[in-house]
């Protein structure tokens, strides 16, 4: 395989992990987040600082997941106070808070970021396989969760949390679980990102990145695992494919986001479903 294709696949794998991690929170449990990139950032910074100080790759990655998950539980606690649009804005605030702190701390590299992050030592193919393995695990976890009672309870919380409470569900705990799992997986994606590019700075985890992850979830079709997988894979490499229209690529990206929402608000999964049922009607 060519080096270029390997890089492309690695990027896809990482963003599938990131997209599905947000899908657990927003898609499954119904808690909207506009600051998801911050948790990827926490995972990335934690693991990068550790490997730079000579610690091995895998424990560092795990530590990144842990710190991101802990931060996620804190934000989850916020989600207990505020709902819906207020929650969206609060999580957006958390994202900017993360950036603000990182920018002003020299220990975290400040504006300059952290460069020279060591290679994980798996070789490019090895790293690709590891990333794909992670993505596959997260896909499996998502599919499994959907069929478990945890997924069932998430459905209820996303649908109507007051009613879920009236049926004896401890809504608080379920929200915290969603945030804990979702954000630690975001930390995993962040750690992989840091050790793929081997350079991170605050802008790698800004507002635009949070929006990008959210659009992967929404365009895929909120809550639909395969829809999000496809949307994440496509959206992550879209800017690269659009190289030939160089100057217009962001314009096309913006119009694409807009058009999907405007013409198929249920995202790609709803679009496919509609096309499928259209043809089935034609055939019968």
């Amino acid at each position, binding site marked *: 395989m060519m080096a270029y294709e390997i890089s492309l696949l690695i990027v896809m794998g990482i963003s599938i992990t990131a997209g599905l991690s947000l899908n657990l929170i927003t898609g499954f449990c119904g808690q909207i987040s506009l600051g998801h990139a911050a948790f990827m950032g926490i995972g990335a910074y934690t693991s990068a600082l550790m490997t730079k100080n000579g610690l091995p790759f895998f424990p560092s990655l795990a530590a990144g997941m842990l710190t991101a998950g802990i931060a996620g539980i804190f934000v989850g606690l916020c989600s207990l106070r505020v709902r819906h649009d207020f929650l969206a804005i*609060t999580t957006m605030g958390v994202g900017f808070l993360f950036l603000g702190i990182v920018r002003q701390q020299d220990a975290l590299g400040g504006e300059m970021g952290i460069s020279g992050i060591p290679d994980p030592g798996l070789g490019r193919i090895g790293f690709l396989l590891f990333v794909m393995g992670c993505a596959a695990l997260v896909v499996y976890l998502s599919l499994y969760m959907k069929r478990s009672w945890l997924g069932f309870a998430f459905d209820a919380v996303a649908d109507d949390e007051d009613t879920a409470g009236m049926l004896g569900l401890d809504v608080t705990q379920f929200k915290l679980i969603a945030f804990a799992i979702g954000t630690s997986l975001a930390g995993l994606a962040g750690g992989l990102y840091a050790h793929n590019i081997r350079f991170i700075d605050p802008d790698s985890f800004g507002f635009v990145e949070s929006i990008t992850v959210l659009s992967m979830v929404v365009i895929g079709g909120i809550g639909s695992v395969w829809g999000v997988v496809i949307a994440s894979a496509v959206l992550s490499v879209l800017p690269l494919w659009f190289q030939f229209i160089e100057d217009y690529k962001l314009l096309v990206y913006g*119009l694409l986001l807009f058009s999907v929402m405007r013409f198929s608000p249920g995202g790609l999964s709803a679009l496919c479903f509609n096309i499928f049922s259209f043809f089935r009607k034609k055939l019968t």
Partner: protein
Amino acid sequence: MLFVELLVQGLLQGSIYGLIAVGLTLVYGLLRILHVAHAGLFTLGGYICVILTNQTGSFLLAVLASMLLVGITGMLIYRICYQPILDQPPFVPLIASIGLFIAMEELFRIFFGAYGLSFTELPLQEPLPFLQVSLKQAEWLTMLMSVGFVAILAFLANRTKLGLAWKATVTDPEIASSFGVDIIQVRYLNFFIGSSLAAASGCMMAVLNNLVEPTMGSVPSYKMLAIIVLGGLGNVRGTLIAAILLGIIESYGTIYLDDLLDRDSIAFVFLIIALMIRPQGLFQRT
């Protein structure tokens, strides 16, 4: 007099935030859309203002034309983009709006270049001392406009038939329509006024910086969201107060908290603390 200077800077910044956020809160109050593309209208307003001032030589004419044109653009955006997806969950219009905003920024760049435009002759630069504070005309006008427009809005909302219809629609669309209020008309009007305010804000921003550029809306695009939340979503007066408060806090914060946090995160620390104490925003919905 660093203290006074910072206060004035804060008031100025707060007024710019206020104009744009008041427009947004109108839209939010009625339709519950987090209308990020509002910041694109702000940029559009600035561009129209600079171009027309340079063409005609009249700043006043340019501002009025900008407010009118952007107001109409706002109504078109409502009709074409939002109306068909109003019954969708809130993140659908949100993402659509973000996509639209990105596209708008790109269009400005493609048509007018990445480095932006300036006035050939910058208007309103005469210093105008008042109460020992010496500011330029443009700066006075900015502050005056934000307070003035909110006062006019409050007057219209309380004294005119259309204003009362608007208030009734915000409170309860169903009851309003049963009283014979034309809700669709109110929505268009709402988008028109909200968007013109964004344009006014963009015009003043253009004069204060003597620059319009494609990305001038990106900081307002998220900060205005924080402000309308603090102001108690849909509350016009609360939004203006929150905007000015935020302007002042940022102004002092960038001097005294700079080692710890940057400008944006000061705003959001303020936001998060405020929301944890008062989950409904600083001010109640009206």
